[in-house]
């Protein structure tokens, strides 16, 4: 008997039009905690290292967290796992909304999508009824329109996971949208579904119940978490002003990347700030992910640009399509965010691409765009940005190249333009200045996704709150290590965040709750896990599971060809200096990054030269199945 989860994985094979259910038990749950961890194990078993991302050999997993559907606040997050067409490696994306909750209430924890269909289809799941249905009439429609049509067909109370035209057109940074506006944005999962010709998955209202091992204890702990959330300063700010409440803090600490990472602060930053969206009347209301009383998602409106009524923009979008492209027009920002929402595009990569286009144009490249777009892609030209979104989504003209992402596009336009293509390993860099926020730099270099925040967000590094400073002290021995522009203690900060993130994602909890705010600590996590599942747990044990997941993900990528030389950052961030608002300059050299990496691998107990988990470490973590691969890599020369 399993508790808190269904213990059921729904497999769908689109090539052979077959559906089957696989059951699992507490052994898997104990080792891998939930969605992200279990899906990493399934990926190891089912996705061959040589499988191409855009092929029927790729398997895409969508899974709800172990606490999803319980009364624990803010634990409705879903993990999507697949081989990324952007990085050609294992990738996991995390998404809010209701999809995970509804999936679980229909009796499944994880859906695994195998194969590819010849014709557009969508999957409908309602308890034991699962069907693959034709989707020709929805193919080509945007996400919002498709959602409305599918709810009309299947009834109020259903939820959707969908791709938009960008996914259908195999844009390398096409997103997967849940509940319309909650986006598993990164890594091009939308293109994976586009290749499979799967427009989406519709889940019915769901009539199952989540059974907890010790409901009374779990409920008590949930209420405690709730009261902690309601008095946490960081979470109060997030509830009030959304994630874009971070904008001004980053601007103040010169970690707000503007103009394609040439500036670290900006005089117009306030136009991209959550406080401004409220003050200037853009905010209509708030939208919560399943179970989330913080409800940081913004419902916004503007009469301009033909009238927009949408959800967002988040912090990352506010900067990626704001300061990053010199855009201080908040109405245009809302429009751009909505277009990305309904076309199904990752706004971080999109903003990275547009900023690179603008810098390239300024430097004398891509001069054809003036005629092609009918407008010059100059910094802050929002009409050009809006045009580019359309061109990329529909792969029109130069948009066809831009849809491939920066790693490919810059090589085509001229290898020298790769110096300002802010990407590494095929993924465009998230919106934080990693030359100054050094824990972020290390975390991004190591991150299996690429240089991205939502995998190991080391927000505590900033030391914005007392709780954050206390955590830094606990991890590194000194509160002095909190704050930006410092190298000391970064490997320790990163390792802890990696582990807790792995657990947090796997149980479905939002990382804001335990790494930006600090409403739940390791002890509470273990108590919640124990009372939910009946599996004995301690803070050490639960963090050990986090380490196990992180190590497995590394081994998956090692098998896919990753080695220490890939633990790097975009060229500009390792080769150019950045100036802060106080006139100080910072450089992050490869030497600095390398010494942080050395220390990190030492802490992990991995092979330092190769960045490779050792066979002993794998055995210790009960990952025996990966030992053979590690031995093979140990015998190969260091590259």
């Amino acid at each position, binding site marked *: 008997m399993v508790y808190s989860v269904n213990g059921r994985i729904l497999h769908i094979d689109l090539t052979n039009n077959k559906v089957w259910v696989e059951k699992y038990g507490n052994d898997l749950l104990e080792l891998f905690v939930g969605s992200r961890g279990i899906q990493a194990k399934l990926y190891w078993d089912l996705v061959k290292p040589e499988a191409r991302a855009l092929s029927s050999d790729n398997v895409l997993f969508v899974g709800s967290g172990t606490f999803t*559907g*319980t*009364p624990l*606040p803010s634990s*409705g997050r879903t993990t999507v796992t697949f081989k990324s067409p952007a990085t050609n490696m294992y990738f996991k994306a995390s998404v809010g*909304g*209701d999809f995970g*909750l509804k999936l679980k*209430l229909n009796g499944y924890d994880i859906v695994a999508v195998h194969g590819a269909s010849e014709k557009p289809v969508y999957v409908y799941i309602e308890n034991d009824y699962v069907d693959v249905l034709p989707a020709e009439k929805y193919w080509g429609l945007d996400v*919002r329109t498709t*959602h*409305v049509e599918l*709810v*009309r067909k299947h*009834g*109020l109370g259903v*939820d959707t996971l969908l791709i938009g035209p960008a996914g259908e057109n195999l844009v390398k940074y096409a997103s997967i949208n849940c*509940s*319309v*506006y909650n986006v598993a944005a990164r890594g091009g999962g939308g293109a994976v579904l586009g290749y499979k010709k799967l427009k989406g998955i519709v889940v019915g*209202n*769901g*009539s*199952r*119940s*989540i*059974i*907890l091992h010790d*409901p*009374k204890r779990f*409920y008590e702990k949930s*209420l405690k978490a*709730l009261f902690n*959330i*309601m008095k946490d300063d960081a979470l109060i700010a997030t*509830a009030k002003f959304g994630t874009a409440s971070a904008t001004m803090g980053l601007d103040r600490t010169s970690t707000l990347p503007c103009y394609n990472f040439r500036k670290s602060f900006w005089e117009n930053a306030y136009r991209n700030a959550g406080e401004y969206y409220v003050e200037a009347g853009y905010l*209509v*209301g*708030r*939208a*919560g*992910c*399943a*179970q*989330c*009383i*913080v*409800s940081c*998602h913004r*419902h916004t409106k503007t009469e301009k640009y033909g009238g927009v*009524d*949408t*959800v967002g923009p988040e912090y990352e979008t506010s900067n990626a399509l704001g300061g990053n492209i010199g855009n201080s027009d908040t109405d245009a920002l809302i429009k751009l965010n909505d277009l990305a929402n309904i076309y199904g595009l990752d706004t971080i990569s999109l903003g990275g691409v547009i900023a690179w286009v603008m810098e390239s144009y300024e430097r004398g490249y891509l001069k054809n765009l003036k005629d092609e777009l009918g407008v010059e892609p100059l910094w802050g030209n929002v009409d050009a940005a809006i045009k580019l979104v359309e061109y990329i989504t529909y792969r029109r003209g130069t948009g066809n190249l831009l849809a491939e992402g920066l790693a490919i596009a810059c090589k085509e336009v001229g290898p020298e333009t790769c110096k300002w293509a802010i990407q590494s390993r095929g993924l465009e860099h998230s919106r934080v200045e990693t030359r100054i926020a050094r824990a972020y730099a290390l975390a991004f270099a190591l991150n299996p996704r690429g240089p991205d925040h939502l995998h190991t967000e080391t927000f505590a590094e900033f030391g914005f709150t007392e709780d954050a400073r206390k955590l830094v002290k606990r991890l590194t021995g000194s509160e002095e290590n909190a704050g930006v522009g410092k190298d000391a203690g970064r490997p320790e900060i990163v390792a802890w965040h990696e582990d807790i993130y792995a657990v947090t994602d796997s149980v479905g909890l939002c990382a804001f709750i335990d790494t930006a705010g600090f409403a739940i600590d390791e002890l509470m996590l273990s108590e919640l896990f124990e009372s939910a599942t009946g599996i004995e747990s301690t803070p050490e044990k639960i963090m050990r599971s986090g380490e196990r997941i992180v190590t497995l993900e590394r081994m998956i990528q090692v098998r896919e060809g990753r080695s220490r030389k890939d633990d790097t950052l975009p060229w500009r961030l390792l080769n150019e200096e950045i100036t802060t608002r106080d006139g100080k300059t910072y450089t992050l050299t490869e030497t600095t990054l390398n010494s942080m990496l050395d220390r990190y691998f030492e802490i992990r107990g991995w092979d330092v030269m190769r960045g490779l988990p050792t066979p002993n470490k794998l055995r210790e973590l009960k990952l025996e199945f990966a030992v053979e691969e590690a031995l093979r890599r140990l015998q190969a020369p260091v590259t």
Partner: protein
Amino acid sequence: MSLGISVNPSLCTGCHLCELVCSTYHFNKSSVELSRVIVYKDKASARFTPTLCVSCPGMPCARACPTGAIIENKQTGMPEVLVERCSSCGECVKACPYMAIRFTPSVYAYPLICDLCGGDPQCVKVCWPGALTKATTLSEKFRGAAEARSIIAGMISKYVR
């Protein structure tokens, strides 16, 4: 006797926590289909509202009940379903002016109506956004309920064909 619970739809963020808490409190397991609060959502427009029993004067649900299974709970003032008399016909659901009775026979054989958790409503406790609060006046309570009703009617006309 308390005045019951007020709904403020414009503050609802659609998170469903009230529903999961409600079912956990009453049934020791969590499911939206076992909740006495019902959250309606139009995700495409980001409009949400909860609805729940506001104990209307004259209790139309009780009047519609052919078996006399709904009585007034003297302690809370809320309608109470006597399951031994209930025939699961669903007449009360149709009679409820606020679409506030949950009845999904495949999940639970009887209609579910808010009982204020006997006086300490859990949904109010967890609703940080403030869409569910302890009512301070009757007029505020019925205004909120009517607003919720018109939002739900809008959703039904948009989505139910």
